[in-house]
C-alpha cells in the first residue's frame, strides 16, 4: 500500500518529467534535417575561442545522426532537463506533507526506514522508466527523419542518465527530510547542480569524473563501453545520500 501512496504522491511529477523529456527528444530528432542543412555553413564561421571550438565540434558530430543526438540531446538538453526532473521527483515525502497526512502515515505500523526505502525505491523506479522511455523514443521516431538509432545505444544512455539522475534525486530526497516545503529542496538541488556544472567548466581536468559526464554518457559515446566507474560512483553517492536521509528522518520529531 505504501507503493500505491508513493505513486499517488509523485504521479503528476512523473508525468510532467516524462512529458518534458519525451517532447525534448522528439523535438531534437525532428529538427535534424534542418540542422543537417546548416552544417556545411559552420566551417566558414570565424568564431574563435572555446565557443568556436564547441560550435565546430557540434557541427562535426552532427554530420552523423548518432553524433547529433549525443551532442544536442544527451550532452546538452538532457543535462539541464534531466537534472531538474530528477530533483523534482526527489522532493516531497513525509516532512513536506505537513498537515496533509504526515501524522496519519506515522500512525501506521510501518518503520520510518521502510517509509524512506519505499519512497526512494518508487521514485528511482519512476526515474528509470522516464529515462528508458525517453531514450527509447529516439530509435522509434528516428525513421521519421530518415535515420536510424540503435536501441542498444538508447538503453546504454538511459542507464547513464538513470545513474547520474539518481544522485540529484537522492540529494533532493535528503533535503526533503530537512525542509517542510517541496521548493527549497528543489531549488538547493538545482543550485548544487549548477555549481557542479560551473566547476566542470572551470576545472576542465575534472570533466571526466563529473556526474554530468556520466549523465551524458561521454565514455559510452566515444568508446562504446559503459562508464562503470562513474555509474558505480554515482550509485555509491546516491546510496550515501539516501542513508543520511534515512538517519535524518529517524531522528526527526513530528
Amino acid at each position, binding site marked *: 500500500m505504501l507503493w*500505491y501512496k508513493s505513486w499517488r504522491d509523485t504521479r503528476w511529477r512523473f508525468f510532467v518529467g516524462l512529458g518534458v523529456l519525451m517532447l525534448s527528444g522528439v523535438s531534437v530528432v525532428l529538427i535534424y534535417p534542418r540542422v543537417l542543412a546548416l552544417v556545411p555553413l559552420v566551417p566558414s564561421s570565424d568564431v574563435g575561442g572555446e565557443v568556436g571550438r564547441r560550435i565546430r565540434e557540434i557541427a562535426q558530430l552532427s554530420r552523423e545522426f548518432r553524433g547529433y543526438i549525443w551532442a544536442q540531446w544527451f550532452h546538452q538538453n538532457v543535462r539541464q532537463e534531466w537534472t531538474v526532473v530528477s530533483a523534482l521527483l526527489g522532493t516531497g515525502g513525509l516532512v513536506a506533507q505537513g498537515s*496533509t497526512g504526515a501524522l*496519519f502515515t506515522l500512525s501506521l*505500523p510501518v*518503520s520510518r*526506514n521502510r517509509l524512506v526505502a519505499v519512497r526512494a525505491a518508487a521514485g528511482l523506479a519512476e526515474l528509470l522508466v522516464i529515462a528508458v522511455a525517453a531514450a527509447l523514443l529516439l530509435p522509434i521516431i528516428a525513421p521519421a527523419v530518415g535515420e536510424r538509432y540503435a536501441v542498444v545505444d538508447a538503453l546504454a544512455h538511459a542507464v547513464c542518465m538513470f545513474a547520474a539522475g539518481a544522485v540529484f534525486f537522492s540529494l533532493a530526497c535528503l533535503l526533503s527530510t530537512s525542509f517542510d516545503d517541496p521548493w527549497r529542496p528543489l531549488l538547493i538541488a538545482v543550485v548544487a547542480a549548477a555549481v557542479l556544472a560551473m566547476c566542470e567548466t572551470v576545472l576542465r581536468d575534472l570533466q571526466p569524473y563529473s556526474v554530468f559526464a556520466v549523465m551524458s554518457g561521454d565514455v559510452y559515446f566515444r568508446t562504446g563501453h559503459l562508464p562503470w566507474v562513474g555509474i558505480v560512483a554515482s550509485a555509491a553517492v546516491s546510496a550515501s545520500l539516501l542513508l543520511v536521509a534515512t538517519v535524518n528522518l*529517524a531522528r526527526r*520529531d*513530528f
Partner: protein
Amino acid sequence: MADAPVVEMVDLHKRYGATEALRGLTLHVPAGSIFGFLGRNGAGKTTTIKILLGMVRPSAGRATVFGLAADAASGSVEIRRRTAFVSDEKDLYDSMTVAEIIRFTAGFFPRWRDDLEQRYLRKFELPPDRKVKALSRGMRTKLALLLSLSRGAELLVLDEPTAGLDPAMTEEVLQALVGHAAREGMTIFFSSHQITEVEQIADAVAIIDRGRTVVSGALDDLRENFRRVQLVFDGEAPAAAFEAPGITRVRRAGRMLTVLSTAGAEPILDRARALHAVSMDVVPVTLKEIFLESVTTEE
C-alpha cells in the same frame, strides 16, 4: 476494569530547544478504561501522545505501551499495529476518496474489521466517492474515527477528538466512542480541554500542567477524595504546615487558607484543629474545579 496498565509513562521529559514540553510526566492508563487526559493548551498533551506513538522521541524517562518501549523502533511499530490514533487536525490524505483511504488503511491491519467498517460507513453516512479534502470538519472526524475503530485495535488514542465540532456532532462522536468501547472492550486514551465531555465518558482522568501530572486517578475516586477545605486562622495562615502528601494545592490569602486535598478532608481538619483554626469548611469539588485548582498557579 482490569488493573494492568496499557500505557505507562515514568518521569517523562521532552525538551524542544530551550522549551521544556514535558517535565517529569508520570501516568498509568489501566486496561479497559476510558481515560481522559486533561490540560490547558500547551500543557504537553499532544507531545505525550506523539511520544506514545513514536512520532516524538522523549529526552528522558520511560514510556511503554503494552509493555513495549515507545522510543524503540521495533516496539513502536508493534505499538502502532495494536493502536489506533486520531490526531487533533484529523490528519488524512486529502487527495484520496473516502473509499480509497479506507482500502489503503485496511491494508496495514490484518485484524481489520469489515463489519465495523460497514457499520460506521452507514452510521456516519460517509459518501465513499467523495474526496477527503471535500469533507466537512465533522465528516472528516467521523472518517478518522471509522479508520480507527475498524482497525481491531486494543488501544484507541485520540487527540482532542471533538475539537471544532458543534454540540450535536460532539455528542454523536462521544456516543460512538462509548458504544464502541463497551462492545469491543478496548482502552480509550483521549486528550481534551473540554471538561464536560471528559466527565461524560471517562472513567479515569489525568490532569497535566506545564508538562507534569498534577492529578490522576479513577473519576469516582477523585470525586470521592477531592475536597476543598477553607480554613480561617486568628493570625497569618500557616500554609507550610499543610504541605504534605495528598495535598495538591495550598493557597493563602491573609488569614484564610484554601487547601485542596486528594485524600479526603479528615487529615486536613485534624491538622487545622491542632493549629487552632477558627473556621473550617469542607466543600466537594467538581472535575472542573479540580482542573482549575490543579492548573492555577499559586500567587
